[in-house]
């Protein structure tokens, strides 16, 4: 039995804190009829629920990748246990076949041979220059190298069958839930889902989930035998890199909003409610920050942060910790540059709200300003906050890629969509073209951002009072 030591990175703490906050907000919503009604509208939207299902899969991958540990090194009895320098996550443990089966260098998706020629010793013929066999990709085929398509197709088919069985079980579960929820027994839960009669868009969720299962199960089944998305320059499986990038993207998208939210909400409401010199000072601060072009402010701040990190190597015990802190610093900087828009919106809305009769009545009764803000103003601004939170997410994920390209993004050792694109960019000049890394990174990012955009639209439609 291998021991392990749990490592808690700061970003892990924040991301689990966000999960906890999400659950907490969920309870708050359940007790707040208008918000609950709005979320019910989101739940009724087919596009919204389909995209939410996709997002949930991404979030699940990200959460699995946010439980870190260091494996125990083998040691003689009686010795003090020592732990590996490498920080691993639960996702790494689950994806051992992907992580450990490294080739020498590039190989195409589903290839059995390496991308570049090498001198190989063939028994009896001396040395020949040829494309060497991959160490792991298609190893089980042995000599039958030309049967890759048939073998992969058959395996994918079997896995798809398994995926269908899994999906059918989930669908039965959903049908049971629907049947329990409805008092009238004229139609079974299954029929009601099929006809789209349920209030919650069960049909969209089930179809999307079926589609995801149909893609994912064969993909991972095949990933055990081939490099489904190929390998990169140092022979690492591209699928594994895509999985690891998800967490980076999620953290940038989620933790940044955590940074900007308190600032934007607090300053926006205070400026709008108290007006006068408080308003002037807050407006001055956000005009100054706003007038510095975002990328340049981020560049300047990241450059400075890099100097701090480089001059204080003693702060970090592992490379992962350093990369992690740099990621958080990036989130912080992005938060500083992006709170101004929401702050201005909230200020304007508070200015309108404070003139309304019920606020005036509260003031006349002598309710303290703080209490008025918390009880009367904040709940009436929630829809703006929620809409802008979900709208910002996709923009931040896209921004990460650009920033990493410019050289002011995440730590180069940290896998992210940006670093993947950056590393693969130069390889388009090769002959034949190395396209798979780029294609995988761009497609995964596209799916994530598209789902986030569609979900944001559904949320906006449900929460925006002007829409109805």
């Amino acid at each position, binding site marked *: 039995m291998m021991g392990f030591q749990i490592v808690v990175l700061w970003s892990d703490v924040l991301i689990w804190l966000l999960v906890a906050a999400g659950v907490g907000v969920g309870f708050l919503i359940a007790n707040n009829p208008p918000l609950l009604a709005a979320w019910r509208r989101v739940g009724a939207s087919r596009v919204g629920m389909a995209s939410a299902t996709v997002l949930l899969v991404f979030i699940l991958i990200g959460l699995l990748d946010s439980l870190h540990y260091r494996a125990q090194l083998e040691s003689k009895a009686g010795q003090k246990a020592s732990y590996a320098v490498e920080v691993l996550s639960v996702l790494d443990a689950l994806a051992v076949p992907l992580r450990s089966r490294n080739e020498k260098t590039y190989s195409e998706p589903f290839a059995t041979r390496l991308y570049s020629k090498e001198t190989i010793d063939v028994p009896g013929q001396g040395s020949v220059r040829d494309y060497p066999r991959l160490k792991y990709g298609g190893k089980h085929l042995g000599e039958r190298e030309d049967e890759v398509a048939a073998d992969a197709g058959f395996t994918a088919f079997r896995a798809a069958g398994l995926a269908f069985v899994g999906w059918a079980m989930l669908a039965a579960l959903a049908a049971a839930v629907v049947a329990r929820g409805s008092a009238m027994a004229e139609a079974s839960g299954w029929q009601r889902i099929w006809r789209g009669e349920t209030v919650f868009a069960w049909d969209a969720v089930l179809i999307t989930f079926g589609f995801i299962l149909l893609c994912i199960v064969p993909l991972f089944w095949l990933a055990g035998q081939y490099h489904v998305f190929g390998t990169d320059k140092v022979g690492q499986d591209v699928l594994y890199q895509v999985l690891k990038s998800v967490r980076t993207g999620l953290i940038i998208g989620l933790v940044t909003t955590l940074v900007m939210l308190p600032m934007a909400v607090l300053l926006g409401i205070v400026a709008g409610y108290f007006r006068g010199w408080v308003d002037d000072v807050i407006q001055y601060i956000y005009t100054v920050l706003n007038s510095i*072009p975002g990328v340049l402010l981020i*560049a300047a701040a990241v*450059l400075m942060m890099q100097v701090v990190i480089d*001059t204080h190597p003693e702060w970090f015990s592992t490379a992962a910790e350093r990369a992690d802190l740099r990621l958080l610093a990036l989130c912080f900087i992005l938060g500083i540059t992006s709170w101004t828009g929401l702050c201005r919106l909230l200020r304007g809305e508070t200015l309108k709200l404070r003139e309304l009769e019920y606020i005036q009545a509260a003031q006349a009764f002598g309710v303290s300003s703080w209490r008025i803000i918390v009880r009367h103003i904040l709940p009436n601004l929630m829809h703006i906050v929620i809409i802008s939170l979900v709208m910002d997410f996709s923009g931040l994920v896209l921004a990460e890629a650009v920033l990493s390209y410019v050289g002011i993004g995440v730590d180069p050792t940290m896998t992210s969509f940006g670093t993947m694109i950056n590393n693969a960019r130069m390889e388009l000049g090769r002959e034949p073209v190395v396209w798979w890394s780029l294609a995988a990174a761009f497609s995964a990012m*596209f799916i994530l951002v598209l789902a986030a955009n569609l979900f944001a639209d559904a949320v906006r439609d449900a929460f925006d009072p002007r829409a109805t």
Partner: protein
Amino acid sequence: MLAYIVRRLLYALPILIGVNLVTFALFFVVNTPDDMARMQLGVKRVTPEAIQKWKVERGYDKPLLINAEASGLSTVTDTVFFQKSARMFVGDFGRAEDGRDIAREISGRMGPSLAIALPTFILGLLVTVTFALTLAFFRATAFDFWGVVLCVAMMSISGLFYIIGGQYLISKLWRLVPISGFGAGLEAWRFLILPVVIGVISGIGSSTRWYRTIFLEEVGKDYVRTARAKGLPETVVFFRHVLRNALIPILTGVVVVIPLLFMGSLLTESFFGIPGLGSYTIDAINAQDFSVVRSMVFIGSVLYIVGLILTDISYTLVDPRIRFE
């Protein structure tokens, strides 16, 4: 009018001072000049003498805000803040790490930046407004629906993909135009056409969707109903009334970015090897040339503030209800 503009310019001054203080704090207080010197010199050659020499060469050896040793006015002027930050107000940006004068470099690089940014901006505006208008005209039809779907899909694609994909497809595979570079004179169009087209395409998704909502908001207003009620055909209602009124928020909304066109685009310029301000900034970031980055931050904010003033002026020009008071 003139008095209004002068007053707006005076308002801008405290904001610029604020920007200056923020950049000063970022570049000199978060890290001491010693840290920067160590960074620039690399790990091997760091001796106290080398650091001191580096600082003297660049004028970082002075006190940050107040020079107690000097007398008279030079207690304030003979400092890092005055020499490095305050003098940017008069266009003196100092020298880059390679010894070149930053101000001259910037004025020389504005041309190529503008050669890309201006056509991209104008073409992009034309294309997106036309597209949005078409979508709004055919609102609530299948065409509108799929148009919006296309927009959402296009805004979900990374800007890097448009550039890398476009370069690969058009320059490498089809060999229509050079992959990167910049030429002077009439021959320049061959280098400009690809970045401009890619710039326009990558902006279509989000702008079209935004303009479409503006058009739709305008369509729902009372004067449109009146126009229809008096029997105007839908095309006349649309092009004479809706288009004109919707252009007000669209045009005043884009005015703010016009001055920023001088800055160029970081991504486009570095991918296409255009010697503009965008690639200058990227090179400075990669070489960790702090004085160049600092200057670009300052110029960027000046241009943004100019854009804000232009926006206010444009409001008063297109909407007679707004007066300068």
